[in-house]
């Protein structure tokens, strides 16, 4: 008989960490929790946008744009959930909302979906995991990553590469040939939308895009880099999900912003479980995964300890 591949889920079922009935219960989808959270999400966006407006003629516009940017970059978390079809029970809503999020943070949805699939297949496997963030070689490299400059450089290169009809060798591995044209089309459409918006701004003389979107996005992205590092960086580069992923216990506002993706090890165990069921899944799996009770800051203390005790091999 042809056997199914071994996944964290099949292991959890085989080892009795999770029963089939529990799995079925955790996986149940619903549109209602997503609409409730989205309603609050929009209110938060209105509030942070208002902050910028109120601070328009003062230096306070910079902290206001930073706060707004922190919310904007968390569209990544929502898009990530949409990639897994776990936000809404209605499947097309996941595609629609995922596309909108991608437009906000410059991340074409279809491409991200394919890339993220390989991340789940090869989590923390050097050379195979396309989303792997290596443990920085030095304190300087750590700080450089957190500026988000390397991230933006990579992101813009990626989008322009796709818009020009090219994929690199890694991308060719995880995007099937039948989807190449669609990935190129997505990148061109995304750049086209930005072009139209930019042209509209120039023609109308309205600079709102810069103050309500571009600058906040740039200011907020280091926070997202800081959070993304806590998911796997510093954990062993081994296939075992119980070791290679970190769950971070964080406060309610951060859980809200990241759509419960702080329960990252649980998510990797059973990616079909929607965001609203992850806290329950955490209670079930918490003794079988790596949990950082001190949250994002403690995760970075761990990362920094590892960086500072290793010899600097960067040559800097």
């Amino acid at each position: 008989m042809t056997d199914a591949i071994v996944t964290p889920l099949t292991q959890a079922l085989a080892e009795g960490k999770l029963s089939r009935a529990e799995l079925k219960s955790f996986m149940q989808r619903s549109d209602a929790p997503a609409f409730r959270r989205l309603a609050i999400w929009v209110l938060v966006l209105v509030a942070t946008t208002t902050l910028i407006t109120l601070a328009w003629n003062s230096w306070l516009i910079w902290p206001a744009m930073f706060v707004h940017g922190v919310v904007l970059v968390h569209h990544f978390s929502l898009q990530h959930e949409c990639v897994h079809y776990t936000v809404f029970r209605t499947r097309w809503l996941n595609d629609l909302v995922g596309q909108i999020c991608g437009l906000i943070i410059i991340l074409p949805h279809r491409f991200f979906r394919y890339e993220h699939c390989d991340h789940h297949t090869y989590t923390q496997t050097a050379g195979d995991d396309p989303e792997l963030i290596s443990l920085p070689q030095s304190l300087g490299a750590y700080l450089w990553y957190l500026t988000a400059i390397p991230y933006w450089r990579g992101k813009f290169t990626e989008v322009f590469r796709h818009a020009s009809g090219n994929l690199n060798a890694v991308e060719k591995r995880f995007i099937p040939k039948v989807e190449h044209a669609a990935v190129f089309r997505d990148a061109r459409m995304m750049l086209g939308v930005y072009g139209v918006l930019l042209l509209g701004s120039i023609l109308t003389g309205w600079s709102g895009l810069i103050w309500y979107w571009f600058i906040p996005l740039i200011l907020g992205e280091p926070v997202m880099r800081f959070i993304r590092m806590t998911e796997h960086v510093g954990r062993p580069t081994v296939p075992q999900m119980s070791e290679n992923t970190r769950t971070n216990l964080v406060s309610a506002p951060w859980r809200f912003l990241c759509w419960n993706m702080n329960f990252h090890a649980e998510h990797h165990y059973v990616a079909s479980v929607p965001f609203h069921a992850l806290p329950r899944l955490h209670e079930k799996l918490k003794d079988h995964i790596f949990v950082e009770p001190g949250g994002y800051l403690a995760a970075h203390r761990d990362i920094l300890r590892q960086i500072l005790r290793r010899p600097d091999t960067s040559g800097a």
Partner: protein
Amino acid sequence: MAAEKPWRDVIDADALEKNWVTRVDVGPRRLAIYDTPSGIYASLALCNHGGADLCDGYFDGHVIECPLHQGAFDVRDGKPVSAPATRNMRVFQARVHNGKVQLRL
């Protein structure tokens, strides 16, 4: 003209998980049997993208979702519904006869 394949009993209809997917091993094949609002359907159990067992996936209406990457298929005709599934999954004719789920394999 090739003779139609015979019906073969694979599981008691009562043993199926209601509105869900049930795993059945028949000889060398691992199969997924789906109880849906419009009847019983069947397919190979392993996802043709990454090889994960669809029987551990989320099932809703007529759509089975792979537990590994959430690629999805319509169980009525095997057509891929969402990426990374791009190829039809193999489906089998199914019916319930005298309390048994029967398939043409």
